[in-house]
C-alpha cells in the first residue's frame, strides 16, 4: 500500500487535549486527544458511538468542550461557533449533509462567501463559474443552478465536499465523507485530499472502511467509548490490530456467508423502464438468494429498487411477487405483498428524527403490535429491545429521540424497523453505510441467516468487498441498464468494475 509522504512529521496545527463532553447522562467524550500535523492525512477510527462525530463538532465550534482544551498553532482557543472555526481555517464535512434544500447547489456551496461585485452585490456569474471549477476538479456533473432538494445522498455528499474544498482551509475535517460514494468518486476525493495535504494542510479523515483509511492516511488514531486509545503511523499497523483496539476484543471473520440452495422465484422484474433514469431492467430473485446490484453511484441502482418498491413511478414493465403483479407506484401494496425496502437516505426516508428509538423501530408494524386497536407500549418496547439487541444499537435509553444517536446507530434503527416486519423480499440500499466493523459483520451474518431461512434479498451496495462477500449473483448496472449478471463463482473485483464502467459485460437477455 502507498502511505505516501510518511516523512512529514510537520508542525502541530491543531490539537485536542484531554477533552470531555457529556450530553445529559451520556458521556460522549472523556479524555479524548488528537494532534494534527501540517501536511498529514490523519485517520480517526472507532466503533459507532465512540465519539468521533462529537469530537468533530468540537473542532467545528458546534459544541464547546466541558473539559480540556483546543490548541491552534500551540495557542489555546475557544471556538465559540462555526463561524469562529471557519475563520480559524477549519473546514468540516459533517457526517449528515447540511444543505439548504430550497437554494441552488452553487449557493449552498458559497453561502455567506459568495463572490461580490462593487457595492457588496453578489456576483452570480463568478459564483456559477467557481462552482463549475470546483465540480470539474471533483469530476462531478451537477448543475450549479438546480436546487439542492431531491439530490441523491451521494450528490449531497459531493456538494458538501465541494463546499469544504472551496475554503482553502488549513485543516480539513471529513466525517465519513465516503460512506455514500463508490470507488471512482472516492478516488477523486482522495486525489484532491492528497493535493491539499501536499500543499501543507492537515486532513482528518473518519471512515469505517479500512482499505480507504490505509490508502489515504499517514497516521491513525483509535478511539473507544469516548476515550483515546492510540495514535500510530499507519505503516506500523495492520487492519487486525486497528480493529482489536477499536472493539477491545477479537472480531470474527468479516463475511460469514452461508451457502443456500435457492428456492423458487419470489421476485420477478420485467422490462422496468423509467424514461431518462433506467431502461428495460429485468431480473429474478429466488427465495434464499442474495442478489447484489452493483455499479457506480448515479448508475440508477437506487432508482430501480425504489421503483420496484413503488415509491417511485415507472413508465413500463412489471413487478411480480410470488407470481402476483404489483400495482405500480403503490408502496402499501408492495408491503402487503411482503416487500420491505431499507432506504439509502435514513434522514429523509427512514427515520422520524424526533421520535424515540422504540417508536421508530416499530413504526412499520404498529398494527400487529396493537391490541384491540390500542397500541400496547409493552409489546412495542419488547420488540424494539429485541431488535436493538440483535443489532447492538448503542443508545442511552430506547426512549431517547433518534436524533441523538450516532450516525451508525441511526442506520441500525432503520434496519431494525424493516427487519421486524418479517418480509419475503428484503431490499436493502447500502445496508452497512456508516456501520462499524463489528456490527457490519453482524449485519452480514443476519442477512445471510435470513436468506438461509428463505428470504429473497436484493442488496444495493457501493462497497465491492461487501458485494463480493455476500452476493450469490451480482447484477451490474451502468447508465440505467443492467449490463451484466455475474454468478458468485465468477464475480471478482475486475469483472464487476469492468462491467460497471461500461467496458465489459456481454449480457444479452434479462434474468435466466
Amino acid at each position: 500500500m502507498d502511505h505516501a509522504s510518511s516523512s512529514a512529521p510537520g508542525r502541530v496545527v491543531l490539537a485536542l487535549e484531554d477533552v470531555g463532553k457529556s450530553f445529559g447522562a451520556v458521556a460522549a467524550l472523556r479524555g479524548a486527544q488528537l494532534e494534527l500535523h501540517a501536511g498529514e492525512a490523519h485517520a480517526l477510527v472507532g466503533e459507532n458511538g465512540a465519539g468521533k462525530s462529537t469530537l468533530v463538532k468540537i473542532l467545528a465550534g458546534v459544541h464547546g468542550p466541558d473539559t480540556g482544551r483546543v490548541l491552534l498553532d500551540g495557542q489555546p482557543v475557544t471556538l465559540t461557533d462555526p463561524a469562529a472555526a471557519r475563520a480559524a481555517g477549519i473546514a468540516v464535512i459533517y457526517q449528515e449533509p447540511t444543505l439548504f434544500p430550497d437554494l441552488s447547489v452553487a449557493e449552498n456551496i458559497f453561502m455567506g462567501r459568495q463572490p461580490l461585485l462593487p457595492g457588496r452585490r453578489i456576483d452570480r456569474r463568478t459564483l456559477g463559474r467557481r462552482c463549475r471549477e470546483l465540480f470539474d476538479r471533483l469530476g462531478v456533473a451537477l448543475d450549479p443552478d438546480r436546487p439542492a432538494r431531491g439530490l441523491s445522498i451521494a450528490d449531497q455528499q459531493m456538494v458538501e465536499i465541494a463546499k469544504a474544498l472551496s475554503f482553502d482551509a488549513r485543516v480539513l475535517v471529513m466525517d465519513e465523507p465516503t460512506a455514500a460514494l463508490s470507488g471512482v468518486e472516492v478516488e477523486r476525493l482522495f486525489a484532491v485530499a492528497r493535493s491539499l495535504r501536499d500543499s501543507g494542510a492537515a486532513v482528518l479523515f473518519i471512515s469505517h472502511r479500512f482499505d480507504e483509511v490505509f490508502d489515504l492516511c499517514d497516521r491513525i488514531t483509535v478511539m473507544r467509548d469516548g476515550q483515546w486509545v492510540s495514535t500510530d503511523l499507519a505503516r506500523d499497523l495492520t487492519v487486525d490490530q486497528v480493529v482489536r483496539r477499536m472493539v477491545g476484543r477479537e472480531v470474527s471473520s468479516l463475511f460469514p456467508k452461508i451457502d443456500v440452495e435457492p428456492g423458487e422465484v419470489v421476485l420477478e422484474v420485467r422490462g422496468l423502464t423509467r424514461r431518462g433514469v433506467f431502461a428495460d431492467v429485468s431480473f429474478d430473485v429466488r427465495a434464499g438468494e442474495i442478489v447484489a446490484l452493483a455499479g457506480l453511484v448515479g448508475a440508477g441502482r437506487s432508482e430501480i429498487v425504489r421503483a420496484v418498491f413503488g415509491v417511485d413511478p415507472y413508465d413500463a414493465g412489471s413487478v411480480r411477487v410470488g407470481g402476483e403483479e404489483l400495482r405500480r407506484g403503490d408502496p402499501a401494496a408492495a408491503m402487503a405483498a411482503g416487500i420491505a425496502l431499507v432506504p439509502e437516505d435514513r434522514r429523509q426516508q427512514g427515520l422520524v428524527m424526533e421520535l424515540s428509538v422504540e417508536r421508530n423501530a416499530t413504526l412499520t408494524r404498529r398494527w400487529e403490535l396493537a391490541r384491540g386497536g390500542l397500541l400496547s407500549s409493552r409489546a412495542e418496547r419488547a420488540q424494539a429491545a429485541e431488535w436493538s439487541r440483535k443489532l447492538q444499537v448503542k443508545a442511552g435509553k430506547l426512549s431517547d429521540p433518534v436524533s441523538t444517536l450516532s450516525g451508525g446507530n441511526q442506520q441500525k434503527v432503520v434496519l431494525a424497523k424493516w427487519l421486524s416486519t418479517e418480509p419475503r423480499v428484503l431490499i436493502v440500499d447500502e445496508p452497512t453505510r456508516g456501520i462499524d466493523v463489528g456490527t457490519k459483520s453482524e449485519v452480514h451474518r443476519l442477512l445471510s441467516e435470513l436468506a438461509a431461512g428463505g428470504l429473497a434479498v436484493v442488496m444495493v451496495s457501493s462497497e465491492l468487498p461487501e458485494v463480493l462477500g455476500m452476493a450469490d449473483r451480482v447484477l451490474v448496472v451502468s447508465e440505467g441498464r443492467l449490463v451484466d449478471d455475474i454468478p458468485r463463482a465468477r464475480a471478482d473485483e475486475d469483472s464487476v468494475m469492468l462491467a460497471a464502467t461500461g467496458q465489459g459485460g456481454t449480457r444479452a437477455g434479462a434474468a435466466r
Partner: protein
Amino acid sequence: MSAPVTGTPAALPEELAAPERTGHRGSALVHRLFVVRELGILAALVLLVVVTVVANPRFLSGQNVRDLLLSAAILTVLAAGQTMVIVTRNVDLSVGSVLGLSAYATGTLLVVAPGTPVVVAVLAGTAVGAVCGLLNGLVVAAAGVPSLVVTLGTLYAFRGLDSLWASSADRLQINAADLPSGFKALGGARLLGVPVLFLVAVAVVLLVGWYLRTFRSGRELYGIGSAPEAARLSGIPVGRRVLTAFVVNGALAGLAGVLYAARFQTLDTTAGTGQELFVVAAAVVGGVAIFGGSGSVYGAALGALLLTTIGTALPQLGLDPFWRDAAVGALILAAIALDRALQLRLAARLRGRNARRDR
C-alpha cells in the same frame, strides 16, 4: 405484459450519457416554475378584472382604479415586510397593531406640531414601527420563543398601548381637519396620474426584492428558513439575521401606518385591525412558503393586489361582502394546491435528473 412505452426508448442511452446537456435545463426548469407561479396570480387577477368589467364597465374608470391602487399600496408594503419574516420560517402577527400605533403616532405628531415637514413625519412613523419590530425580534431571536406566540402577544400589547395612549391623551380620534394640509396632500398626490402612495409601495417591493436577491444577508434569510440547523452549522449569524428581518418588517409596518394616515386622514385606535391575517394570506397566495425558505416578494405583492381587487370587485358585481371572505379562503386553498402540485412536478423532474451524471 408491459405497458406501452411512450417516447423513444432508443434515445435513452444518449440522454443518460450526456449530463452536460442537462446543465442549464435545471435552472431553466426552476425558473419556469416560479414564473408559472407568478403568472398564475396574474392570470387570476386579469380574469377577475375582465369578469368585473363585463358586469360593470365603470370598474375600470380612473377614480376606481386609483382607489384600488391606494388600498393595495398599504397591504403591499405590509406584505413585502412580512415576506422577509416568513422566508426565515417566522411570522409577524403584530403588523396590524404596529400599523395602528404608527398611524396614531404620526397623526399625534402632526396635530401637536403642525409645522413638521412631511418627510420627518414619514420617518417618525417608520421609526415607531422599527422599534416595535426590534421588540419582537429581540424576544424571538434572543429568548428563542416561537415568533407565532411572541407576535400574538405583541398584537394585543401594541393595540393596548395605542388605546391607552389615546385615552390618556384624551384624543380618541384624529380628524382630517386636525391634520396639516401638506400631509393630507400626500394622500391624493399623483405622479403621471398614478397615486404617489402606490408608487411608494412599488419602490418598497423593488427594494426588498433586490435586497433579498442580491446581498449575502438576503440569501442567508432564505437559508435560515430552508434549514435552520444547516444555517447554524454554516456559520450564519441566525439570531442577528432574524432580528434584522423583524426590524425591517416593523419599519415597513410603520411606513404602512403613515400611508394609512395619509390616505384615510381619520384616525382612531382601531386602524389596521385584522390586517395581519390578510397580509399573511397575501403572501401565501403569492407563493411564499409558510415554512420558510422560498417565495418572492414580487409574488407576495401580486397576492396583495389580487386580494385587494377581490375586495373592491365583489361589491361591484353585486355580491354580498360575505363572498369576499369565501373568495379569499378559496384562493388560499387554491394557492396551496398549486404550490404542492408544482413542488411535486419539480421533485419528479429533479429526481429523474439524479441518474444523469457521467461516470
